[in-house]
């Protein structure tokens, strides 16, 4: 197996997993919050928020990547501030790859979760409120368990997207082996040169296997969560 992929390629696999994991793990709470806000609250600028969230889906990834580079780059307004204040650097680090992946996956995640929230019968939440539960508790104990299949679906969809994300990532954080070279960047690089196709294919196989595993796990989790709700 170790012969099958070179060390640099293993690095890319490991990096992609790390990037996707953190991208989804950290953005999931925001995704849930955003989905909840869009599904249940009405506030000024709701449509704008909704639009902004969808931008990464609409724009060619390269554009998103450039916008990220301009904003979160070392010389960008937000990037510079973050570096000064928190010492948090995104540009050309794996953290930046995670940021790019998170932003690209965000609309998918939010959509899934939002649909699940909209399907929850608000009368159950009302019932919980009559039992004395404050809104946040109602959310944690009624809404969240009921939308769990949707959250899992959203997270996995996001994870898959993050694993496959390439355009924005390579534009934002480049393609530095061991630092920012994710699986898709590595595949891209191999595809750019003569004779790279078989190496690319190997990496494609790896990413397919990883994503399929994630997908299967998510299906099982979601089914289990759904069965809990259906009773029996």
């Amino acid at each position, binding site marked *: 197996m170790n012969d099958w992929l070179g060390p640099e390629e293993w690095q890319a696999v490991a990096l992609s997993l790390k990037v996707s994991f953190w991208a989804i793990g950290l953005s999931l709470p925001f995704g849930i919050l955003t989905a909840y806000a869009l599904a249940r609250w009405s506030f000024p600028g709701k449509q704008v928020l909704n639009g902004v969230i969808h931008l990464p889906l609409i724009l060619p990834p390269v554009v998103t990547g450039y916008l990220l580079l301009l904003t979160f780059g070392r010389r960008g307004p937000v990037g510079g501030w973050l570096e000064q204040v928190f010492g948090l650097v995104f540009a050309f680090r794996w953290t930046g790859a995670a940021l790019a992946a998170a932003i690209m996956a965000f609309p998918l995640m939010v959509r899934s979760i939002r649909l699940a929230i909209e399907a929850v019968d608000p009368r159950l939440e*009302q*019932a919980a409120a009559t*039992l*004395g539960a404050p809104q946040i508790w109602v959310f944690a104990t*009624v809404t969240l368990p009921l939308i769990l299949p949707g959250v899992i679906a959203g997270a996995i969809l996001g994870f898959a997207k993050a694993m496959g994300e390439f355009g924005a990532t390579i534009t934002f954080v480049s393609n530095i082996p061991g630092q920012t070279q994710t699986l898709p960047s590595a595949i891209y690089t191999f595809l750019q040169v003569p004779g790279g196709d078989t190496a690319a294919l190997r990496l494609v196989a790896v990413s397919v296997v990883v994503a399929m595993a994630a997908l299967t796990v998510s299906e099982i989790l979601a089914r289990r969560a759904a069965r809990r*709700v*259906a*009773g029996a």
Partner: protein
Amino acid sequence: MSLEVDITRPLAGFDLRVAFEAPGGVTALFGRSGAGKTTVINAIAGLERPATGRITLSGQTLFDAQARVNLPVHRRRLGYVFQDGRLFPHLSVRQNLTYGQRFAPRGATGPGLDEVADLLGLAPLLDRRPGALSGGEKQRVAFGRALLARPRMLLMDEPLAALDAALKEEILPYLERLRDQIGLPILYVSHSVAEVARLATSVVVLDAGRVVRAGPAEQVLSDPTMVRQFGLREAGAVLPAQITRHHGDGLTELAVSGGRLFLPEMDQPAGTHTRVRILAHDVIVADHAPLGLSALNLLPGTVVTLRDGQGPGVIVQIQCGSDLLLARITRRSAEALRLAPGRPVHAVIKTVSIARTDVGAG
């Protein structure tokens, strides 16, 4: 503990405009399908927002349209047993039951999980999910859940409709105990006059979004003008009574203002004040004190009024002591007995006609 409601809520095709007071005890909200009962109870719970008006509970304002007060649902602490159950499908019966416990204020007392599970026959179901319960079982869980949240007041929307007679019989005394011993006020929506008569201390009658009658249960239920609301079959009088003796053969003797009554054995000790509902159609009128009948109860009295009903019936109001009894008999009998205001008669009532459901704690 007193709940005051004065609200309006105009809907397309239905216009709600009610004002009433629930002075504690059990207040029955009675009315035909579509009269607006659920709408009222939802407004009190905070689930629907009235257009105008005020709702106060023991002086605390729950809602005031003018003052822009609208206490959030979870801070109202009103236990709500919904008409449609609304159990949490992802939680076990046990978790459903205990859901509200953590929010009960520390001082609040009340029955515990085991007690409630036993009472409601839920003990063997505690680890099931609601999806694996029958209709009646669901409704019982909903009741237990509201109770265990230790609410300041219970709102119950036709809580017993899905239950069989035997279960109702088991649960009703428990509601009485809640009312009498724990003093938990209950707003009780029901179609069943029998339930209302048994439980309610006050009755509010709704019709097409308006309060048509409200007052103490005895008065409202014995009001011959309300016969149409309750249905002929449910017309009857509620008499205050006091238990005087328990007889060895399983009968309990009670004193009413017009004489004494024998009833099937009651739990309460002698001396207890209670209420007895006597349905109009269970009363036989005799022009003398009859002998050789299996009916044990004979109350002498005087005819006050005769009211023609629809059909062949007549409602006879009889003054027995200080109480008014209602009797429903055929016109033919009324004529045969030459009944007229002022005529002295005897009211004959079978002991077993007065069902346990019709005897309520004071």
